[in-house]
């Protein structure tokens, strides 16, 4: 079986969890004998001013084609499309970013692709235009390539998937990694919502990353429940050198929040819980790692609660610093208000850090050896944190069973469920 897959990022060009997920998923699918034709838009900047960034990006691209990746690359036909699609931002932020970076951009194309398509003029300056352009590319590809099933990841690629289905008549599977409600709460962007809904309506099957997301899809988008299937995400096993505990320079215990400081991630509940713990126990420090539109508000709140001497903001962390942060942590908290899946607790668990997660996260559906609380229940959250700091058998148990639990969440198994969904619609 051959699958035409529309994504928007792929390692190492990733800004969020989706690229990692797609990478793991395609590797898993290959183990089940599925050929994947992966289509990805690729953002390039201005040739002159953005050259430095461009080169850096190219460097990583080259790395990607090193032997480590070759096994997979050889089997996946990989294409890049010149486009500006940036994940995790809505049209408004996109416009801002594009306005700053790409004021007068010439089109820059991957040579492979450029031979076939000639984009005239400039990049589109708004996200919806980019999405439409991606759809055109989807349709063109669909007419040229041989494949059996179309698989599209998240709303930006749905129009491409739908277009490909119309041109080819092949079945379409759309994959919901996050809904507009997860990104924006109740203040949704109706254009995005419409694209999501139309994509799912046109699709033959919808895959959701958790039952939580499945319910949203059914209840808030009115999608026929019979065609919506949950396939929980998995994680790639990591083999990195353990960072020694000596990395930690404070004598207090460290409780960490790591993620975007936005409404969706529930940072304020973390601060309120921190206050409750600090009232009883001064031998602990709280860290909020990441950045986002609520960051200033959170700094003000921490100051107002007079816990700023024990509550720290690190700003955005990346790569090795993330690992270092985990190595320093005694407890990891993910208080998300709405989290379709949530990969970060799994990363913490792999680093032997016990975790507290909100029940409003998809990952809560697959984990037993964690503490689960409602995001709004700051008493329970504070209690969970306090217990992990004081009752040592909890940490022992989590370290003992948590790692095992995470290691059992294999992409190969998740991919098997995806193949089952393909088979439901596959026309031989």
């Amino acid at each position, binding site marked *: 079986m051959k699958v035409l897959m529309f994504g928007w990022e792929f390692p190492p060009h990733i800004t969020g969890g989706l690229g990692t997920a797609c990478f793991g998923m395609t590797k898993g699918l290959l183990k089940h004998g599925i050929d994947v034709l992966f289509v990805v838009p690729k953002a390039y900047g201005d040739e002159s001013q953005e050259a430095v960034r461009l080169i850096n990006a190219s460097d990583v691209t080259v790395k990607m084609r090193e032997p480590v990746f070759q096994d997979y690359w050889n089997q996946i036909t990989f294409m890049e499309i010149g486009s500006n699609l940036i994940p995790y931002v809505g049209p408004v932020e996109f416009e801002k970013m594009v306005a700053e970076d790409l004021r007068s951009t010439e089109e820059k194309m991957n040579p492979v692709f450029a031979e076939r398509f000639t984009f005239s003029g400039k990049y589109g300056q708004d996200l919806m235009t980019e999405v439409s352009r991606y759809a055109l590319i989807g349709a063109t590809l669909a007419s040229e390539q041989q494949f059996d099933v179309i698989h599209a990841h998240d709303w930006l690629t749905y129009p491409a998937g739908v277009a490909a289905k119309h041109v080819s008549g092949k079945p379409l599977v759309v994959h919901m990694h996050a809904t507009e409600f997860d990104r924006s709460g109740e203040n949704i962007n109706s254009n995005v919502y419409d694209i999501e809904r139309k994509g799912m309506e046109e699709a033959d099957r919808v895959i959701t990353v958790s039952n939580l997301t499945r319910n949203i899809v059914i209840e808030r988008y009115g999608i026929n429940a019979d065609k919506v299937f949950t396939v929980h995400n998995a994680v790639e096993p990591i083999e990195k050198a353990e960072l020694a505990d000596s990395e930690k320079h404070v004598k207090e215990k460290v409780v960490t929040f790591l993620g975007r400081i936005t409404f969706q991630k529930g940072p304020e509940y973390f601060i309120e819980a921190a206050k409750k713990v600090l009232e009883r126990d001064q031998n602990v420090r709280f860290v909020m790692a990441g950045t986002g539109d609520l960051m200033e508000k959170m700094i003000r709140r921490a100051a107002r609660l007079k816990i700023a001497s024990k509550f720290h903001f690190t700003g955005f962390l990346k790569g090795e610093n993330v690992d270092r942060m985990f190595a320093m942590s005694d407890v990891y908290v993910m208080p998300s208000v709405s989290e379709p899946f949530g990969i970060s607790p799994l990363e913490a668990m792999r680093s032997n850090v016990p975790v507290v997660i909100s029940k409003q996260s998809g990952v809560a559906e697959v984990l037993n050896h964690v503490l*689960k609380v409602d995001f709004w229940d700051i*008493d329970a959250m504070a*209690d969970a944190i306090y*217990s992990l700091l004081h009752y040592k058998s909890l940490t022992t148990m989590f370290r003992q069973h948590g790692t095992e639990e995470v290691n059992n969440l294999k992409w190969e198994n998740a991919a098997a469920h995806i193949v089952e969904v393909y088979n439901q619609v596959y026309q031989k």
Partner: protein
Amino acid sequence: MRSICLYFQVHQPFRLRTYRFFDIGADHYYYDDYQNKHIVKRIAENCYLPANEIMLNLIKEHGPNFRVSFSITGTAIEQFKKYTPEVIESFRKLAKTGNVEFLAETYSHSLAAFKDEAEFMQQVKKHAETIEQMFGVKPVTFRNTELIYSNDIADKVYKLGYKMMLTEGAKQVLGWKSPNFLYNSRPHPQLKLLMRNYQLSDDIAFRFSQSSWGEWPLTADKYLNWLNIIDKKQDVVNLFMDYETFGEHQKAESGIFSFLKALPGIVLNSKKWIFRTPSQLADLLDPVTTLDVPYNISWADEERDVTAWLGNDLQDEAFDTLYSVSDIMADCDDEELIRDWNRLQCSDHFYYMCTKWFSDGAVHHYFNPYSTPYEAFINYMNVVSDFLIRVKEYSENRIAGGKPLKKVEKTEPAAPQKTIKAKPVKETKPAKPKAAAKVTTRKAK
């Protein structure tokens, strides 16, 4: 005529309220009164009252041929007094018939035998006194919490003066032997043992309403056929189960009460069987052989061991933390502290922390007010943290007041061999358990 021994366990724990860490040192009331009242009232209505009514009628109908035995924990009695005195009254009516034996156990359904011998002895005495006071008869038969038994426990029970004890007919102990005989204990041959027939007991207690079960629906006639296939030389069938089987675990709609009403009549009409109590059997039967039980057995789960209560890190930390003050509590005269000490020892709290998710998880879930063992642990540890602060304050006040605590002479009881499982005896080699035991003991060192 051969014997059927019916014994029903009646127990209700004091469930804890949600107790946060910021309550520690600030609030010393630990119990969820609303939930406890609600549950006890519900079960009284669904089970205790209607089942006792049926028992009373069966005794009236069949006279001395129908006898049953109960073990009612101290924590259950306290709650009946408080919330459903009519349950106490109905048990008293049963007691007056003279056809009912009440057994002795630990007052608060505790696991004290593993940790604190003096406390264990004291609790058994307290329970026996309570039963005598309530029902006018001093118990002469002992059953330990969850039918937990080992040579070590047999020794303690014998020292308390009991000559008959009930336990599980666990495969790892009996091997090829049948549970349908009277046995005696290895450390004290004078202590006789009745072994639960788990097959026939669980057919009623667990499988009665399972429509997926091949034998469903179970009728009294069919059950009598099963009894009759048992080899004629086997003396006694021990049917031991939670009393809540009737109307609570197996709902009234399943027909469990009709079964309960019908069974004794059908069994007695066959003229092959008669219902006897443990103390009658102690006088009637001679033990066939001695049972050596170096490792703890119980009536729980597939393993029939104590891993439902002890053995994972959470359970062990909670258990050790609570008993860290047993020296002080041995000579404590503060009524509220004694009350909490009793209630916190209840084995149910440790059961809620069990992490054996996948095998017997469904059964555990039914009995568990917490959604995860971790929540159970956190809540319990918060409560115990407060309790320890109070006990320590009490102890300091005693010293300051010139009445220091008496040093209690204590022999450290053997720790439960919770990580070691006794290997099942091979059918052809009855001598195996001793050898196997030696090997595992060595490994344990």
